[in-house]
Every structure is written in C-alpha cells, then in structure tokens.
C-alpha cells in the first residue's frame, strides 16, 4: 500500500511537471505568435468558436444570476428597511464575483469541453503527430490560437454576463419587487466603483488562461479511444472548475491587498 501511494505521489509530481512545462511552452509560444501575422487568421477562427457562439449562454447565465440575487436578497434588506440598497448588493456581487466565476464555469463546460474533445480526438487519430511530422509546432498551430482567443474573449464575455446580471437584477427589483428605480440606481452608482468592475474583468483574463491551458493539455495527453477522450473532457472540466475557484480566492486576496494599500479607508455605503 505504501509503495502504491509512493508511486501515485511520484506520478502526480511527474504530471505536475509536465503540465508546468506545457504551460510554459504555451505561454512563450503564444507571446511569440503575437508578433507573427500568420497567427491572426488562426486566432480569428477560434474567436468565432470560443467567443461568438458562447455569447447567448453567457448572457443567459448573467441574467439569471442577477435575477436570483434580487429575489434572495430582498427579504433580508426589506426587514431592515434597506430594500432600496438592493442594487448595490446585486451589482457588486455580479460584477466582482458571481458574474466572472459563473461565466468562467460556463465557459469551462462549453469551450473547455469542446477544446479537449477536439484536441483529444486529433491526438488519438494521430493528427497532432501529423502536424509535428510536417515540421509544424503543434503548440504554435493548435494551442497558441486557442489560448490567445480565450485570454482575449473571457474578459469580454464576462462583461456581457455583468451587463445582463445588472439588467436582470434591476428588472426583477423594479417589476416584481416594486423598488423605486431612481433610488436603486442612485445607491448602485454610489456603491459600485470602477475598481469592482475592473477586478471582475481582470479575473476573466486569468480564468480564460486557465481554461485554455488545462483543456489543451488534457486534449494533448488523453488516452486512446472514445473512453479516453470522454475521460479527458471530464478531467479538463473538473480541473478547470477547481482552478477557477482557487484563482478566484487568490485574486480576491491580492486585489484586496492592493486596494487597501492605495485606498486604506473605504467609504461605507
């Protein structure tokens, strides 16, 4: 038993090393690719797959997050006579936390799964070996465009989710809960800072990088057969999901430190 535990630990360390090396190669190759004109058509084709086709599902996610927050938070605030502050609560939660995280989780499922399945199938049918055999770096041709597209598009998609979350929360607050719209927007404008919106968007950059890197890595290293590709997709989603949550926590701590460094006394709403 001790031997098998040791072997598992060694394998985990080897896998972590492989992933680290893959991430480093993907990052450096993507940076170099930014300077090459031939990269842009490849990135553009991924923009359509990763970005354009994800817009509806991301907007729906954002809208429901805002609407649900409004319904859930209203009773607590109304009990204290603070129902007109509902906009602050909804909008901060949407732009800072729930919008970015839930949009990223949705992208991990939709985009990450598709990337892993596509690259995994290419791997088991030797198409990635074929790319290598023709003297082309598969990291440059297959990974860099997907990574660049995810880095570029995840923050933009998060902004879509934010906008829809804000609109969804506002509509439920006005139409269903009967909150005065003028007071709602006034308190929201006072309580939500550009910093809060920026945090969510910057988080999207990191989430996009994590989703693309993990999904491509799992696709490149998936095992033979349909079961292997399916397992790689599951592993990619689980790993992306955990990475999103871990990154969210780490970035929350970092951004809070930065905020407190520059603005030690935050005005209370």
């Amino acid at each position, binding site marked *: 038993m001790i031997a098998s535990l040791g072997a598992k630990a060694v394998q985990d360390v080897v896998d972590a090393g492989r992933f680290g090396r893959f991430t480093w190669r993907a990052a450096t190759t993507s940076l170099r690719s930014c300077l090459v004109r*031939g990269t842009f058509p490849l990135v553009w084709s991924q923009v359509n797959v990763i970005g354009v086709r994800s817009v509806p599902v991301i907007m729906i996610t954002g809208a429901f997050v805002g609407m649900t927050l409004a319904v859930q938070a209203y009773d607590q605030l109304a009990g204290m006579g603070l129902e007109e502050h509902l906009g602050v609560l909804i909008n901060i939660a949407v732009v800072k936390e729930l919008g970015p995280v839930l949009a990223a989780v949705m992208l991990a499922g939709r985009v990450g799964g598709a990337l892993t399945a596509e690259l995994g199938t*290419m791997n088991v*049918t*030797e*198409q990635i*070996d*074929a790319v*290598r*055999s*023709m*003297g*082309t*770096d598969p990291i440059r*041709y297959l990974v860099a465009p997907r990574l660049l597209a995810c880095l570029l598009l995840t923050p933009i998609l998060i902004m879509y989710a934010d906008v829809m979350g804000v609109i969804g929360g506002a509509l439920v607050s006005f139409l269903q809960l009967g909150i005065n719209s003028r007071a709602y927007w006034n308190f929201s404008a006072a309580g939500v800072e550009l910093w809060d919106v920026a945090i969510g968007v910057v988080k999207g950059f990191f989430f996009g990088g994590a989703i693309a890197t993990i999904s491509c890595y799992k696709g490149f290293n998936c095992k033979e057969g349909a079961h292997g590709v399916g397992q790689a997709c599951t592993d990619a989603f689980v790993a992306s999901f955990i990475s999103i949550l871990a990154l969210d926590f780490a970035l929350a701590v970092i951004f809070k430190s930065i905020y407190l460094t520059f603005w030690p006394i935050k005005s209370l709403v």
Partner: protein
Amino acid sequence: MTADIGVCGLEQQNDQRQPAGENGAAEIQIEVRNLTKKFGRKLVLDNISVSVERGKTTVIIGPSGCGKTVLMKHFIVLQRPTTGEVYFDGQRIDHLGERELNSVRTRFGYLFQEGALFDSMSVAENIMFPIKQHFKGVTWRQVEDVVKAKLAMVGLDGFQNYFPASLSGGQRKRVALARAIALNPEVILYDEPTTGLDPIRSDIINELVLKLERDLGVTSVVVTHDMRSAYKVGDRIIMLHNGRIIADGDADHIRDHPHPTVQQFINGQVSEDDLAVLRMSGAVATSQFLPRDFQQ
C-alpha cells in the same frame, strides 16, 4: 550493395545483413544506434541498431505490437529513445529541440496508418497545409497547382473539395500520401499503407510506392505485415520480433530464412503455442455455465 552496408551492430542481433544484389557502397541516410524504448516498464525496442540506405525501400515486418511503428517514429523523432541515438544524414537528431527538429522533419513525408487527415479540412486544404506552413511567399494559384499535381500523382485529381469523411479508406490513404509528398521529401515513411484495403487497392498503393521511388528518387521505409506488399516494394526487408531484429536481407533471403518465427510469419502459420492456447480456450468454453444452469 555490399554485405557490410546498412547495419550497425547487427552482430548483437540474431541475424547478419545480407547483400541486396548490387556492388558498391550505399549511402546511409537514417541510422539508429543501440536504440532502446520503454513505455513505463514495458520494453518495446531492445537495443536495436539499424540503418536505411538512400534511394532504397526498406520494409520493416513483424507481428502486431512488436514495435515496428515505434521504431519508424524514432526515425523522425516523433518518439524519443529511452537510450540510444538517431542520425539523419550523419547528424544526430534525437537530442534536438522541437524547433530544430521541425526543419529536419520537412525533409520527411509520413503516411500514417489511418491517414491522419485533418477532418475539419478539405482534401485540398490538407495538402496545402505543409506548403502554407513552410512557404509564406507563394501565391494561391501556385499552391493550387501543386495540390493538383500531387493529387494527380496519386490518381485523385478532381477530389480537391471533398472532405476526408466522404472518401473511402483507399482514397484517404492516397490523399494522405499526396500530403506526405507535398514538400517533395527526401524520405517517405509509410506506416502500414495497405492495411484494411482490398487486394486491388493494396496493389495501387504498392505501385505508388514504387512510382515515387522511381520518379522522385526518394528513400522509403515501409512498415507492414502484408508480405505480398513487402516482397513487391522492398529492396531490403527487416523483421522485428519481441523488440529485436531477427532477420535482415532482401526478399530471397527472407523467404529462405531458417528462423522458425520468420517462416511462421511470412507463411501466415499459427504456432504450436498459439494452438495450445486456443485448444485450452475451447476446453474452458465447454465448461462454462449456460443461462439454464442458473434456472431453479
């Protein structure tokens, strides 16, 4: 060709390289020395040394799973040796980084067993792929002309707009061959080019291999277990068994080889050991339970 060409270290193996029928020293283009490959604890290639002569067709035969494809992937360093060295045109290549290897790989064409065509691209786009990757200044018209010429060489001109999914197995292999020769390689590596094809389609592929050798003067390495194909295209045949070379020579040498495993393989005979296993399985089958045995 002389008796001492083409093979390094075969004295460690069970067979000596036999003359292929010509005089004069042949030039070695690809060489592996003391190659061992392990996947985890599984030993796939066991201290193999072999070389491939320029302008000749070398065929690697052997039973499924004996390491033929793994050996051929080492020629182009799609696999890295566990120990040992790989040389191309006298230059050691197994320790090169991927970026340095890319320029070496453009001198090879590789026909994968299942074709490995990009299924999201049309036939024309598949053949254009290596050209567009390595020749940035060429015009669309020039690329189209090259695609047309390559498809004509494999008898598929007019199939430019088809997608791989709509082609038959033989057509896919021919398109894959057209893609493999798109950069006018010096060496073409064929991984089981006739597997899964009917005898006529197989012979078309064999004729293509011979045509490319004749017309383009390329060096060819063919991995196969189709002996008809091996005899037809091979200037030299190497047999692998359990990760080692057990026979190496021209077609006549292989036909008359004394090693029982070689004779079993080339004649397609099942061994006594395999028969014993089959008989045992039969005994087990008769003693197995039937559904009615479970009925009360």
